């Protein structure tokens, strides 16, 4: 990643221009050709610096009001196998292995779920519990009650 890539990242943090040729518009702002910009974006996507180009919806505005961080105490030996399976469930948006903090925090598998109704959320939690079966010793669900802060990724020079 060089200084032009960083300029591209800064220039697109607010989003892509809503013009018929958005990459041309952006390239002009940055002072490179549209071809170079598209090549660089493609390269950043291939190398994973860009996960994808796309839209991020606001959960609440789409009616997803039951957004829970489900957390599970999963046997270490089964973690990667089960974590991969939980991540494939279509109602899970993020799934991570994270460290426990014993004794207060025994949970090591985190899966974010999004539901329109409380009943649907309960069903999703039951589905994950069934998948983990006896490899899970305990679980909890932390529903968000308020967004205290939400900003995009920041990058300086």
């Amino acid at each position, binding site marked *: 990643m060089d200084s032009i890539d960083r300029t591209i990242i800064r220039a697109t943090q607010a989003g892509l221009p809503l013009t018929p040729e958005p990459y041309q518009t952006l390239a002009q702002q940055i002072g490179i050709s549209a071809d170079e910009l598209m090549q660089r974006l493609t390269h950043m996507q291939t190398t994973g610096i860009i996960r994808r180009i796309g839209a991020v919806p606001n959960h609440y505005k789409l009616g997803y009001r039951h957004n829970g*961080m489900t957390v599970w105490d999963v046997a270490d030996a089964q973690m990667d196998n089960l974590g991969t399976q939980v991540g494939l469930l279509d109602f899970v948006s993020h799934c991570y292995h994270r460290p426990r903090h014993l004794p207060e*925090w025994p949970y090591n598998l985190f899966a974010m779920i999004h539901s329109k109704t409380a009943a649907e959320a309960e069903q999703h939690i039951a589905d994950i519990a069934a998948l983990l079966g006896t490899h899970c010793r305990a679980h909890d669900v932390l529903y968000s009650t308020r967004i205290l802060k939400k900003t995009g990724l920041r990058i300086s020079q």
Partner: protein
Amino acid sequence: MDDIDRNIINTLQAGFPICPSPYQQVAETLNISEQELLVRLQTLLETGVLSRFGPLFHAEHMGGALTLAAVQAPEQDFDKMAAIINAFPEVAHNYARKHKLNMWFVLATETPAQIEQTLHKIEQQTGLHVYNMPKIHEYFVGLKLEA
């Protein structure tokens, strides 16, 4: 929001092409005009149905670092603690959650060392113990909320 809007949201969550006229290309698959797509997209952004449209970056692949951390803020000091934590530019998101650990925030920094430094400063300024929960492994990240 109508069926065309829902179609746009579902389609654009999956990705967006890199080519000279990408809106035109997407509009064709949606059976609408490029102009209609641009106008509707603008409205979806202005009304906050979409919080963002553009490249989604992977902090670690840019050399940066992320972590998830939590504190147990006393109820009577909750807002004060949130203000202290939110004042750090490294804090990207912060959520109140129903649990003994009632405040959960994401730090995004340009280097891994800055994570430790920032957490240390947060502990000093809040007087709270910070539970640091950096990811050990990522199994899945993606949004797929059907509109």
